[in-house]
């Protein structure tokens, strides 16, 4: 990293337990504005658990989380979104039964008040939804009033990213954004990730595809059994080495349980 930038998000000695299962073990990590960080590791390594804390879905069992140097004490998705953290998750984020316009603004519907009663501003929802369809490369035939269920996998990802950008988030967490995508759609999503980083967002990118993330990320954080085992800039590690570490593990005692 360059000269003493203050981290945007900082986790200090974070532990997370689900019942008797420890999902995160004493994880300390910093994330900075304007970087694209690849968060990698095997299944069950704790990648999603880590970002679930940042996006407010779960609270850590112990440890501290700082955003802009401020200690975060309550964890809720709404709070995270209000603080500028947007997450595009693999399986959640879109309600298939609602239209594109309604999904775009779900939870933060624009309203026009008539006699103090909040009515949703359908005109604005359609207009902004339409803009997102055009700007983020969805098929032109996609109808802003059509159900989200009709979108392709890549369009769903692009749509979630568009929404994150619209709400001026500072931090975008992408959880396996290219799963089940065609090659061309994958390129498109990765280009978007790089563009957002260039617009000085912090992008945290979770993936299994090491060679793909090695091309675009500035830094990699490797998790294993819930512990952070490596935190390296791209220029210090080849994609092959990265893959070997994930496959074979670091072989130290990082996997042993610690008190929560």
């Amino acid at each position, binding site marked *: 990293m360059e000269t003493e930038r203050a981290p945007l998000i900082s986790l200090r000695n974070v532990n997370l337990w689900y019942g008797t299962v420890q999902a995160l073990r004493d994880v300390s990590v910093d994330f900075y504005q304007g970087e694209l960080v690849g968060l990698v590791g095997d299944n069950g390594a704790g990648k999603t658990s880590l970002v679930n804390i940042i996006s407010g879905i779960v609270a850590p069992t112990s440890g501290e989380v700082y955003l802009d140097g401020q200690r975060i004490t309550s964890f*809720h998705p709404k709070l995270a979104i209000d603080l500028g953290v947007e997450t595009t998750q693999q399986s959640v984020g879109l309600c298939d039964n609602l239209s594109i316009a309604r999904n775009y603004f779900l939870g933060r519907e624009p309203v026009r008040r008539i006699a103090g009663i909040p009515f949703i501003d359908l005109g604005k929802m359609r207009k902004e939804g339409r803009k997102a369809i055009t700007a983020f490369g969805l098929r032109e035939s996609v109808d802003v009033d059509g159900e989200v269920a009709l979108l392709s996998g890549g369009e769903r990802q692009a749509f979630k990213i568009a929404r994150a950008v619209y709400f001026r988030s500072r931090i975008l967490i992408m959880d396996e954004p290219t799963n089940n995508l065609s090659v061309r759609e994958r390129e498109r999503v990765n280009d978007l990730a790089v563009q957002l980083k260039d617009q000085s967002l912090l992008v945290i990118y979770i993936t299994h595809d090491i060679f793909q993330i090695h091309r675009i990320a500035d830094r990699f954080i490797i998790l294993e059994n819930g512990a952070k085992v490596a935190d390296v800039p791209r220029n210090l590690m080849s994609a092959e080495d990265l893959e070997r570490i994930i496959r074979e593990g670091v072989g130290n005692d990082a996997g042993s349980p610690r008190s929560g």
Partner: protein
Amino acid sequence: MRVSLARFVLKRPETSAVVVTAILVTFLTITTGGTWLSFANLQSVSRITAVLAIMAFGEALVISTGEVDVSVGSVFAMGALIFIGVGRTVNLGVALLLALGGGLLIGLLNGAVVAFFRVPSLIVTLGTLFLFRGIAYGVTEGFYFGASDEVRSRLIFNVMGGANLGGVNVAVLWALVALLVLHVVMFYMPMGNRILAVGGNAASAYSRGVNVARVRLIVFALSGLLAAFAGMLDAASIGYVDGSFGELMELEAIAAAVLGGCSLVGGRCSLLGTLLGAFLLRAVGSYLVILGIQPQWFILLLGVIVVLASLSDRVLTKLLFRLQQR
């Protein structure tokens, strides 16, 4: 062509209810030689439809979130018993507030257990169904509460179901008001968007910052409120209420909502369809009466309708979706 038709039906879930209603009305009118369409019969059908519809609107909201409220039949009885019971002994204004407040409280109780403890709503509301039915039988002691002529002449009593306007019971007007208000809430206000989102995919709604527990609490509270309101309207128009008041009506409310195009798994709702669903059930009921068939057979028919409606709900949705994707 086929695709656009599928889209139309998916977007307007009440379409099938409209079609079935039109066919049924024609059938009922012809086979009864016009008796079914007589003013007297329509007067009665419109009133009992309105009462059921008001309860079913609340049920439709609950079903839209993917839950179910089977306690509404007993809440209906509580609303009626409090209104008549307190109204004839204390004061009608107080009775009105207590009846509505009681329904709201029962709804909040159901909703709180579902929302905060994630107990399946069927189990929770089955419990309150028995609980408040027990209370209804207990307080009436096998007898009934009747409203005196003095009570029946009061304005509140008449506004709350006692009066007819131009031959139409005021409950019909209340049902239309409820339809209008709830339709606007569901489709033109943020709350409706969130109710449908929770029913469609609660995890996604939560990840977008929707307070899922609050949404669940609100729909159950409204369901309780509306069931008590419906009970009050029915009791005031009949003039008395007993412990069995509203028994099995919870099934009719669920059937009305599902017939009207509300999806039992949540996420799809039509209040206009629910009104038509209520009308379908009541129309068939009155038809059996005109034909002189024992009313007990209606229960069998109701069971068949509920099973078929829930089955067709799944099959139809899947089919329409496949057509649309082509």
